[in-house]
């Protein structure tokens, strides 16, 4: 079940990410849905799941991007592992800590990704802080929203369904 959720989440994130790749902000993609999915899975299921999700998602993203396969994978593996470990050590079940985790994970990922390319491919370290900040905030919002939808969605739907039924009975 968990594996299926992992594959579905990452696949959906990748599809959406490629669809939304045209949305740019300062030269950097404004949202990284794969990263959001990895952080989400790490927060929800722990270090091992986060790590495996990071590895899988990062490698696939690298392969699709056409650069050096592995740099993104390593970055996201570390992110997934670190977030999973932190989630098991601290209480990250409320909105603000989760938002902080998404934002921090985005910054850390970008730094490692750019640093890896600078170190391995000899590319100059070109991190754009403003664009990264925007991406981090967007990632945080998307991630927190995803948590809210998953956790509170069924309850809300049921409440709505119940309120509709009462209203209908009154109408009928």
């Amino acid at each position: 079940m968990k594996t299926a959720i992992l594959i579905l989440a990452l696949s959906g994130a990748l599809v959406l990410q490629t669809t939304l790749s045209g949305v740019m902000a300062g030269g950097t993609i404004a949202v990284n849905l794969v990263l959001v999915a990895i952080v989400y899975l790490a927060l929800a299921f722990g270090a091992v799941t986060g790590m495996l999700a990071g590895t899988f998602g990062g490698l696939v993203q690298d392969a699709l991007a056409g650069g050096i396969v592995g740099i993104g994978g390593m970055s996201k593996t570390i992110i997934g592992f670190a977030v999973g470990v932190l989630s098991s050590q601290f209480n990250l079940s409320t909105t603000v800590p989760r938002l902080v985790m998404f934002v921090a994970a985005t910054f850390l990922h970008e730094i490692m990704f750019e640093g890896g390319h600078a170190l391995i491919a000899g590319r100059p370290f070109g991190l754009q802080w403003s664009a990264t900040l925007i991406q981090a905030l967007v990632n945080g919002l998307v991630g927190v929203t995803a948590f809210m939808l998953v956790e509170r969605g069924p309850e809300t739907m049921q409440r709505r369904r119940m309120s509709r039924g009462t209203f209908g009975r009154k109408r009928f």
Partner: protein
Amino acid sequence: MLDIRKRTGYLFLTVMMAQVILVSAQVQTKGGVRVLQAVTFELFSRVQFGTASGLNFVRHGWSNYIALRGVKGENDALRRRVADLEVKLQQEHALATRSQQLQALMDLKSQATVPTLAAEVIAGNPDPVMRTVTIDRGSADGVLADMAVIAPGGIVGRIIGPVAQHAARVQLIIDRNAAAGALSERTRAGGMVVGVEANPPLRMELVSVLADVKPGDEVVASGVDGIFPKGYRIGRIEHVDRGSGLYRTITVRPGVDFSSLEEVLVVLVPPTGATRGEDVK
């Protein structure tokens, strides 16, 4: 069953290592070689180096220790053999030298106009003041006192009494009590050669300051002493000094090497003259 949740750290390291390898396979070094190849080659070269070192250690240990168990005995045997061969070599060398000396003695004997008897030096003299040697010929061989003794290099000395039946003592010409009538072969300037405690150990006396002698002249026996046959070589003049008075001071280097005297010839001619049986000087 493997529970990876309890081994999260190992799994993380494994995944990261796999990705590092993956990245290395794609990146090239400045030399154009892929990092994975370079790292793999480096790692394998270290392994090969370690393996080769281990093999060399084993081979070294085998060849230098284990395989040498019987070498000590073999070494001892070879040492003994080398010692034996060195002794044999010395013997051969001695034989060759002795053969040369005997050959020279035979030549002298064949050239001598007087009857001679070959003798071997069998002993020296324990008293350093008296320069004598003992030969293995005595009265039984016809040796008498005051007979001259010669060698291929020249005059050795004379027989001094008493003469044993199979041995005799020879007073060397360089003894400080020995003397012989002598003359310069070149100018026939006469004098007397005596032994001295100096180097060279011979001095020619009674040579007039008017006589023509110079370093390098051969000195031979004059025969006037009645002991040493005339014309036999005594030595060579090494230094001539004006001296004081009527005579020159002349030093003579003997023709015989007295330090390696082994075979001699005894001149079997009885001495004549007034000095028979006594020292000349």
